[in-house]
């Protein structure tokens, strides 16, 4: 198995789906010749041409609306929004149109579209270009939400998202683009709604998504030196959310820490926590459910402050120690 960058694995997934299915096309700002703000679509215009890799004007609402229309008309559009932050501009088209159409037409119309966007802080991009809020979209019926954490997952999941007949929000953490990992050569698709146990352990369960999976795994390595055996569960998709895998893990370990990159207040971690408390895992809890997430502040530009705005490895290590005290 070859080691690949997350960004390359993602591009490979896009390419394979475009090769496989003529109805798949990309649209977004500067995704053609420029190859996208982060370079995800680099080179695809050469292979598939301007008709299937469409540069658009700067209007997220228009881009999203076009995608919804194209999807209803039988295409499988994949939108790139330059920064996840700008998804706020797509909200009406995505939530009031895209998420509702299949239901309102009694299933006779489908909306097979993907809307991808780079999210998260850590790049010094300040408050309007640094947010992570995929949890917001998980709130709306009719949408699916994917938060892949590894090169392997991002490829398998982008393919699943493209093949899904519903609008899928696909959140890529910017810091993950440069993360390397093993990616199988063969064609594979990962199911939406299936969590992955990223590390097996018996003392505590960490439920982490996106970039936090990487940090949780690093924390687990630290904690291993102290004899603490951490299990890391990556839900991979927030919607559908695979509570089963999480509950089974908590039943085994009796302790759980939930780590998200979204702001902690009203974040998806609360949904997971409530799911655990309301399940049979309740009787196996040996400590209160603990959560880590972004502070309740806009992401600061100052790099020192920015770093403290979201959970880092040391915060995870400390939280685990506290839970096992």
């Amino acid at each position: 198995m070859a080691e690949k960058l997350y960004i390359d694995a993602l591009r490979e997934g896009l390419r394979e789906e475009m090769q496989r299915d003529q109805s798949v096309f990309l649209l977004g700002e500067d995704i053609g010749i420029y190859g996208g703000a982060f370079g995800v679509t680099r080179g695809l215009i050469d292979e598939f041409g301007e008709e299937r890799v469409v540069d658009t004007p700067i209007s997220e609402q228009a881009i999203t609306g076009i995608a919804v229309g194209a999807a209803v008309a039988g295409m499988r559009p994949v939108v790139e929004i330059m920064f996840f932050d700008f998804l706020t501009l797509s909200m009406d088209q995505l939530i009031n149109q895209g998420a509702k159409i299949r239901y309102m037409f009694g299933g006779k119309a489908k909306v097979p579209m993907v809307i991808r966007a780079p999210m998260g802080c850590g790049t010094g991009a300040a408050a309007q270009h640094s947010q992570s809020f995929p949890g917001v979209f998980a709130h709306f019926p009719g949408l699916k939400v994917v938060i892949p954490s590894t090169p392997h997952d991002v490829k398998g999941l982008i393919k699943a998202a493209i093949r899904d007949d519903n609008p899928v929000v696909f959140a890529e953490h910017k810091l993950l683009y440069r993360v390397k990992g093993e990616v199988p050569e063969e064609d594979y698709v990962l199911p939406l709604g299936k969590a992955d146990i990223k590390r097996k352990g018996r003392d505590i369960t960490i439920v982490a998504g996106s970039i936090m999976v990487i940090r949780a795994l690093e924390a687990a390595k630290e904690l291993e030196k102290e004899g603490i055996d951490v299990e890391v569960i990556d839900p991979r998709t927030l919607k559908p959310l695979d509570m089963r895998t999480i509950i089974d893990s908590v039943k085994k370990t009796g302790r759980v820490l939930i780590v998200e990159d979204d702001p902690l207040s009203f974040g998806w971690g609360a949904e997971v926590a409530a799911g655990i408390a309301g399940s049979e895992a309740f009787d196996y809890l040996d400590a209160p459910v603990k959560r880590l997430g972004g502070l309740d502040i806009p992401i600061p530009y100052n790099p020192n402050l920015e770093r403290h705005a979201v959970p880092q490895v040391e915060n995870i290590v400390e939280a685990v120690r506290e839970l096992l005290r």
Partner: protein
Amino acid sequence: MAEIVRMPKLGLTMTEGTIIKWLKKEGEEVKQGEPLLEIQTDKVNLEEEAPASGILRKILTPEGSVVAVGQEIAIIGGESEPLPEIGKQTGAEVEEVEVEPELPAPAPQPGEKVKASPAAKRVAREYGVDLRLVTPTGPDGRVVEKDVLEYVESRKVKATPVARKIAEEKGVDLSQIGKPEGERITKQDVLEALKSASLEPQEEYRVIPWAGMRKIISDKMAKVKAEVPHFYLTLEVDMGKVLELREKLAPKIQELNGVKLSINDILIKAAARALAEYPMVNSSAGEEGIVVKNRINIGLAVALENGLIVPVVKDADKKGLAQISKETAELIKKAREGRLLPDDYCGGTFTISNLGMYDIEEFSAIINAPESAILAVGKIAKKPVVVEDEIVVRPMMKLTLSCDHRVIDGALGAKFLRRIKQLLEDPIEMLL
């Protein structure tokens, strides 16, 4: 749908029952209404019918276990139907290799809340551990799962596997083998214990656990004797005429219904008559006042192998001796066979207990609450008595009436008892 069979409530006072015998095996087919198991309640043995047809998928409580009313005892369902999850049995005895010695409780306060994690609570439930006895090591004094498990472990008797095996085979109680703390019991220890045990002639005592009828009697008697203010009245009755009457009537009644007329039947009749005349004796001390009962239902204490039961002759005042004798004979037979139904022993308003057949001259009985009085009957013995200034030999019998003083005063009890005496000494009047 799988049907969960629960311990039925077969009488007002029934709180638990003993599983005597399962009449079907796991995996066997049962039809609705077919006898499924035998249950012993505090009063009787009964066959319980299957509430549904299907396969007896699971027996949850083994024979011999004492089970609370309403607790799940079995599941009937389709052949491959998934079974519902049933909560951990609390009533049933769980077989355990490890023996847990009596806990030296550091006097926990009743109602004291213990801070414990859900997992700790679950494990405590599983092992039957009182969380108040566990030393908490979690943050803020919280008992965590590990604390409970360590507590359970600390209470276990440590023994080598071989020692355990031998102990099990030979029936040696490992908890009785003294061993310094932390040291494991070895094969040698068990063999020595076995040797010294065989030298000892016998155990000093055995304990029969409180269960079933014994438990009910024990609880009820202690409660009644402690709570009901008893007083006792005794008098002697000349039973000459009753014996004459019985001699005359017995063959006729025998012919009529094949039953032998007994003194008890005549006592029931006399008591019923007296109760009709003194309705205050036919009463109960209720919460708000004296409950005076309109029906006269007379119970007769019947001794059983390991307890007693009081079947009831209903409306005894309205029945003739032939009817009473037939009913008592049937009730006594059913009682001895453990076949009484709740209706046979419920609703009594007065009780008669006769120990005359054991040569008892007189005794004071404990009232069969909620009734207000009980009549204790001694043996009929020929005695020299003074009749019209002459000493004659008469068949005499002592009656002792125990009364609840909350309801019955001395004079009332005395008048009532004297009335029974009059009726017995002139039984013709009873037949009026």
